[in-house]
């Protein structure tokens, strides 16, 4: 490896490994000690002996890993020493409890971003910029075509769509990832329009959010077929895996929409044969990605899941030591495949 300076992390077949501290960050296979950025399936692997995660994300992580998982937690910024490596967690702004992992040893600082966004989100702590020498960043939406509209604008659109559907006697079926996206959506919905019904996967995560003290509008778990009166003017929140299932068909007549960063591109909207696509992402867009990298002051940037080639080349042309990292992180994906 031609990299200069100390190497606090290296890529192994189980994931990013810190030899000095003998731990992995977001491993994708069971290991002894895993520091986990957040509870999404591509970052939190089941079956590790011990986990270290943020206190804020404990509830949702436990839900994901099962009751037997050993989860130690840290408050934001609280340091812990692991084999001489000073480890601390800092908000990544992605979902509830999502963290950036800061490693420091011998004056050298490394930061693993996990998934992150810098846009406001009332359901989690805001992203904290951290100065570092090496920054390991995601690049899910690392192309200049991805620029997010203001969150307020998107919610205005979503609520207008819901209102119009309610007026025309259609149920509004809104798809979004069950963990994170669904709760952010909930926080932005206008409950005065009508009742909000949820798919089981969404309801479970939403309960965990409420238990963590995040205020969210009231929801009703639509387990059985809701009575016609209860569905009147309703919005149904469901994970994308429920799209086209018998569970969703019971809400007919409905208008279906998907909220995701991918909806920025028409082709992605068309492929899903949905009525609407709302551009709402829990990842940084292109300008925010570049700004975040710039704010770290890092001279070395490793780029993981997403448009790694474009981001690496862009950074390289700007004099940074940039390199694409072949991880198994997947960016936004539907990892809540559950059938009711």
């Amino acid at each position, binding site marked *: 490896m031609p990299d200069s300076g100390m190497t606090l992390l290296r890529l192994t077949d189980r994931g990013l490994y810190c030899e000095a501290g003998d731990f992995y960050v977001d491993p994708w296979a069971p290991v002894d000690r895993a520091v986990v950025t957040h509870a999404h399936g591509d970052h939190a692997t089941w079956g590790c002996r011990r986990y270290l995660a943020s206190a804020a994300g404990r509830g949702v992580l436990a839900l994901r890993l099962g009751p037997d998982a050993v989860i130690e937690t840290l408050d934001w910024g609280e340091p812990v020493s692991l084999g001489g490596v000073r480890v601390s967690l800092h908000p990544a702004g992605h979902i509830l409890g999502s963290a950036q992992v800061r490693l420091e040893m011998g004056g050298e600082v490394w930061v693993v971003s996990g998934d992150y966004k810098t846009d406001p989100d009332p359901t989690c702590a805001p992203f904290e910029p951290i100065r570092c020498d090496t920054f390991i960043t995601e690049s899910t939406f690392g*192309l*200049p*075509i991805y*620029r997010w509209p203001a969150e307020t604008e998107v919610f205005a659109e979503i609520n207008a769509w819901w209102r119009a559907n309610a007026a025309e006697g259609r149920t509004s079926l809104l798809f979004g990832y069950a963990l994170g996206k669904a709760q952010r959506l909930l926080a932005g919905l206008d409950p005065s329009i009508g009742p909000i019904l949820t798919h089981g996967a969404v309801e479970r995560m939403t309960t965990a959010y409420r238990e963590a003290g995040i205020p969210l509008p009231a929801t009703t778990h639509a387990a059985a077929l809701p009575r016609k009166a209860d569905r009147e003017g309703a919005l149904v929140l469901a994970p994308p895996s429920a799209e086209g299932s018998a569970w969703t068909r019971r809400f007919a007549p409905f208008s279906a929409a998907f909220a995701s960063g991918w909806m*920025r*591109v*028409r*082709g992605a*909207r068309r492929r899903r*044969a949905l*009525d*609407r696509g709302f551009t709402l992402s829990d990842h940084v867009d292109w300008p925010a990605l570049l700004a975040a990298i710039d704010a770290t002051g890092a001279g070395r940037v490793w780029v993981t899941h997403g*448009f790694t*080639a*474009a981001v690496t*080349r*862009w950074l390289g*042309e700007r004099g940074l030591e940039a390199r694409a990292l072949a991880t198994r992180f997947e960016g936004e994906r539907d990892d809540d495949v559950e059938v009711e």
Partner: protein
Amino acid sequence: MKDFAALYTALDETTATNQKVAAMVAYFRSAPPADAAWAVHFLSGWRPRRLIRAGDLRRWAALAAAIPEWLFEESYHAVGDLAETIALLLPEGAGAEERPLAWWVEERLLPLRDLEPAEQEVSLIASWRELSGRERYVWNKLITGAFRVGASQRLVVRALAEVSGLSDEVIAHRLMGAWEPGPGFYERLTAHDTRDADWSRPYPFFLAHALEQPPSALGDRTCWQVEWKWDGIRAQLIRRAGQTFLWSRGEDLLNGRFPEVEELAAFLPSGTVIDGELLPWRDGRPLPFAQMQRRIGRKKLDRRILAEVPVALIAYDLLEEGGEDLRTRPLGERRRRLEALVASLPTGASIHLSPVVEGDDWPALADARLAARDRGAEGLMLKHAESAYGVGRRRGDWWKWKVDPLSVDAVLIYAQPGSGRRAGLYTDYTFGVWDGDRLVAFAKAYSGLTDEEIRQVDAFVRRNTLDKFGPVRVVKPELVFELAFEGIQHSSRHKSGVAVRFPRMARWRTDKAAADADTLETVRGLIDAVNAR
């Protein structure tokens, strides 16, 4: 522009035809007529020819987005659509006052064609700056000629019918033929008085076949009405309910193009339909057809061109009189009524009877035919005196008996660059005629076009190349030319089975579509006709 972009988005976002129609209805209800006319134009599938080179567009867009070209390409790769890629990449526009669609089309889009690339760049960047995201996408679709929308003509008609309270038929009829977008057009399109639509309708044209055997095979000469075969623009002149309509065979409404004919039509009694030929006409004979093309080429008809190239309708047939459809009556009767009608018109006028050619027997007519060129005609028309006015091209009752040089209407199918003075221009052409539903190559020709025409064909070839074999370009079969030649014979060496001598382009038939070109069967028939002479 905002409303039009919103309409585009609405049509794009739904797959339900009812919602598509509802979106169009909402748009047409509120759009100013000039915008509505352009919207109808675009929704009907009209696209400007390529205005800007794709390479230029990508370069300017990358520049405007302040990204290197490789990143533009990466982005394009992820999006898969040029217009959208550009719209997604450009920085937020400064915004400008909202301007109507008609302004954007007439002041910005159409002028692009005549600008130098550097001026195009300035204009485009200004437009991008003044438009917002969704409008920009639609704008890019318009300038790249890629504006397609998921609404069939049927749905457009339905929406317009709903807005205007008219029937689908009336709207469909009014959308037929050539029309220029403009506020007047939209008002006519949705006008409540539908008599125009009913009254304006022409009858299907009846067409003749080329004579394939010696005329003696047609039997008794006295059973046949013989006329000159004129070669102009076949047309129906309709006078109904105080209004005049002039239709070409291509179902183009020619109103306004031949004021001298329309003027005289005002003297016709209501409920009259005449079938005839529009010809540049002076002193009882046609002027060369090139004169007619000069006149057709003019956007505005001034006094001078009207004086230099007067046009007359040479009347062949009377299809309707006193509102009664005469088409099933025998030709003899229709002719008598036509003669009486034309005789009732002011003298020296621009509607004339197509004269009947005298001749006691077939040999006498064969002599007359040889003199056809002297009269500015192409040959003779043989029409059975008992014949009805049929529909389309039917064999048996009407024949055209053309004079030499033989000529065939053929479609340009291949082009090759010329040499010498014409090097670098596509000037050497191969023409095809129809054999069933495909075109077979049957002759090559290099001469007969003016330099200006060559330039136009060259430009067409470059824009419409389907395939390339060495220097030969296979072009979209669209342009029709009348090929004239001195002789024709069977040939086993030619794919078509026919060889022609000294072929040349006698005329560019801009009035004909590829489907109107001659068939191989007709061409083969010429061989027998020549030998029968």
